[in-house]
């Protein structure tokens, strides 16, 4: 959509209402904290992405070429840790959740602004400490740090555990804040049946953050106790059970996949609603499915242990529950597709990204269902099939949703518009590159190539070459996208308050918003994204307010 001719850049907004470095570093404004998170997670994304390119380059040849085995093992460990703990987990909730959750609730801020700022600094501290510990300690255990490899390895795993503990604390605090905010700070008239789906998804995410993250904390503590003091909890020589570690580890690490995916689903729901000009088809089902995924998702962790010596009985239970998560996801997919029906579809960059999200989610989800079929998992477990599957879901779909969120809310956050054409071509590169990277990896997994391989048999080479080329196309697209947005930040056209004519609550204010989000207290009279008839009278005063 082209911005309205009358669009003007507001005189006062949350960027310039207070100024100076300290006004940012000590800010309690959720929007500024969100932007600081934005900078942090994008840095993590760039770092993780460069490491991935390094890994792919090494795998171009079957023989060791660029780096030796030890360096390679450290590379993929670093890549995994950075991408999972530093990028994926905080990406959408901490950036877009922080920015838009209070706005979607018609609130002035999150419930505990100081806690919010603290959680940002805890994140930064934990992130830097983890990175230092991995690089300094030369940790090569993979991001799953399975015992007894991690407890008998000569490298310093214990500080990394501490770092993860700290990062985990940050996501606990963010989740806690979101839950309390959603319960207590909804604007008058905003009942649970009118909550935007992004809020529902953040709510589900936060439940997981609050209830699962302490488990990884305690697992980190146990592993550290094992390494430093030789407690022997996971040491078979002392009667310990290494499989217990895997149980506890996946009790956190499987739900955390939904910490990544649920907010992505929330973003896509908003984008579909805006660009099809309809409330999402089957809103209630979608909300229920969200909570279903969040709660049932806790009890499917055992599908990571089908061949790890888990009992057949447990495998059966976890197998069935995994299928239920698949059903919830399928419900969501059907509902998104049906949202187009009798809608008014407008093809824009965010909408294209949402469609690609759907493509990756269907593909990744279906392969996930295949993996959850126990007998099939026996063949695919720990092969490139798994690598490709979780990259489809966690990188493909989540990255698409992250980019969709960036492009959808960019005008709201910064008040300017990016070039649609450049952004679209970047997205095309990303989509093609992504498929070229990971479809061959499914086939490699079928062939039986195990993951975390530094060198491989020559028969795997052709597919690996294709994958490496895809990775570079993907990387090119990502950088193109980054530059398009950076350019728009300074030179983009003024977007206007609501360039997409969305009826989401967060658009009821100026772009960029003022310090306390809204000029007038919000009263919600209608569900989100009701496009029946002309827009409801909005209580927004079109007067630029100064500093109060």
């Amino acid at each position, binding site marked *: 959509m082209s911005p309205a001719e009358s669009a003007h850049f507001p005189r006062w907004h949350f960027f310039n209402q207070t100024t100076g470095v300290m006004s940012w570093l000590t800010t309690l404004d959720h929007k500024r904290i969100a932007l600081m998170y934005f900078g942090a997670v994008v840095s993590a994304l760039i770092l993780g992405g460069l490491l991935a390119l390094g890994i792919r380059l090494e795998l171009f040849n079957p023989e060791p070429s660029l780096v030796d085995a030890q360096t390679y093992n450290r590379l993929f460990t670093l890549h995994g840790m950075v991408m999972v703990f530093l990028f994926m987990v905080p990406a959408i909730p901490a950036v877009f959740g922080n920015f838009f959750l209070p706005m979607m609730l018609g609130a002035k801020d999150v419930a505990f602004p100081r806690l919010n700022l603290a959680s940002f600094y805890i994140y930064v501290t934990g992130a830097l400490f983890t990175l230092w510990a991995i690089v300094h300690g030369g940790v090569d255990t993979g991001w799953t740090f399975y015992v007894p490899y991690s407890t008998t390895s000569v490298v310093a795993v214990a500080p990394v555990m501490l770092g993860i503990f700290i990062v985990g604390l940050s996501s606990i605090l963010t989740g806690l804040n979101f839950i309390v905010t959603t319960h207590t700070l909804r604007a008058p008239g905003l009942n649970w049946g009118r909550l935007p789906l992004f809020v529902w998804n953040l709510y589900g995410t936060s439940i997981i953050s609050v209830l699962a993250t302490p488990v990884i904390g305690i697992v980190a503590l146990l592993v550290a106790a094992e390494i430093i003091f030789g407690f022997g909890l996971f040491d078979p020589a002392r009667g310990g059970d290494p499989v217990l570690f895997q149980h506890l580890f996946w009790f956190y690490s499987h739900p955390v996949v939904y910490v990544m995916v649920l907010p992505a689903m929330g973003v896509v729901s908003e984008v579909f609603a805006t660009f099809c000009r309809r409330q999402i088809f089957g809103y209630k089902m979608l909300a229920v499915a969200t909570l279903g995924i969040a709660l049932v998702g806790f009890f499917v962790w055992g599908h990571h242990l089908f061949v790890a010596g888990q009992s057949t*009985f447990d495998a059966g239970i976890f197998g069935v529950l995994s299928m239920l998560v698949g059903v919830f996801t399928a419900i969501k997919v059907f509902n998104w597709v049906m949202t187009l029906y009798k809608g008014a579809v407008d093809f824009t960059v965010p909408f294209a990204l949402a469609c690609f999200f759907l493509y990756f989610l269907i593909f990744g989800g279906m392969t996930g269902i295949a993996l959850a079929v126990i007998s099939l998992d026996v063949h695919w477990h720990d092969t490139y099939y798994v690598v490709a599957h979780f990259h489809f879901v966690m990188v493909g779909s989540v990255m698409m949703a992250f980019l969709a969120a960036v492009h959808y809310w960019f005008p709201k956050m910064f008040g300017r518009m990016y070039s649609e054409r450049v952004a679209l071509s970047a997205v095309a590169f990303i989509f093609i590159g992504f498929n070229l990277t990971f479809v061959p990896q499914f086939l490699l997994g079928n062939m039986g190539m195990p993951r975390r391989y530094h060198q491989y048999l020559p028969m795997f080479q052709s597919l690996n070459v294709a994958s490496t080329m895809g990775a570079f196309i993907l990387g090119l697209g990502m950088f193109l996208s980054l530059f398009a947005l950076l350019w728009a930040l300074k030179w983009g056209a003024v977007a206007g308050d609501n360039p997409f004519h969305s009826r989401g609550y967060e658009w009821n204010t100026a772009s960029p918003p003022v310090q306390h989000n809204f000029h007038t207290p919000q009263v919600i009279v209608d569900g989100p994204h009701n496009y029946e008839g002309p827009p409801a009278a909005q209580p927004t005063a079109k007067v630029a307010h100064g500093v109060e």
Partner: protein
Amino acid sequence: MNHAHAQHHGLGFFFGILLSLLALTGLTYVTARVWSNYVPDVLHVPLALTIALVKAGLVAWFFMHLNAHAPVNRAYFVLALCFVALMMTLIVGDAMTRLPTAEPNFPGYQEVRGAP
């Protein structure tokens, strides 16, 4: 306003709760150690856990004013306990139903690996 209900209870009431907590502590000791021969083996753990749950319930409901707090506070408290219970069930259940060949120290190991 939301703790108005809690204010109805005076200190005497809370002291009564304390006394019943102490009595339950005595009960759990007596059933586990003094009368242990009269309690069937299979009941030891469930009995001790039940008493602990009752005590925890008293503390949470009255001392922590869960009776007067918002229902959602109760919901999250119960949810957390359920999650721990399910975690325990699934993980211990795994060990209980694992192949008895798996580990020499596991019960049942000798029946499978033992006498020909």
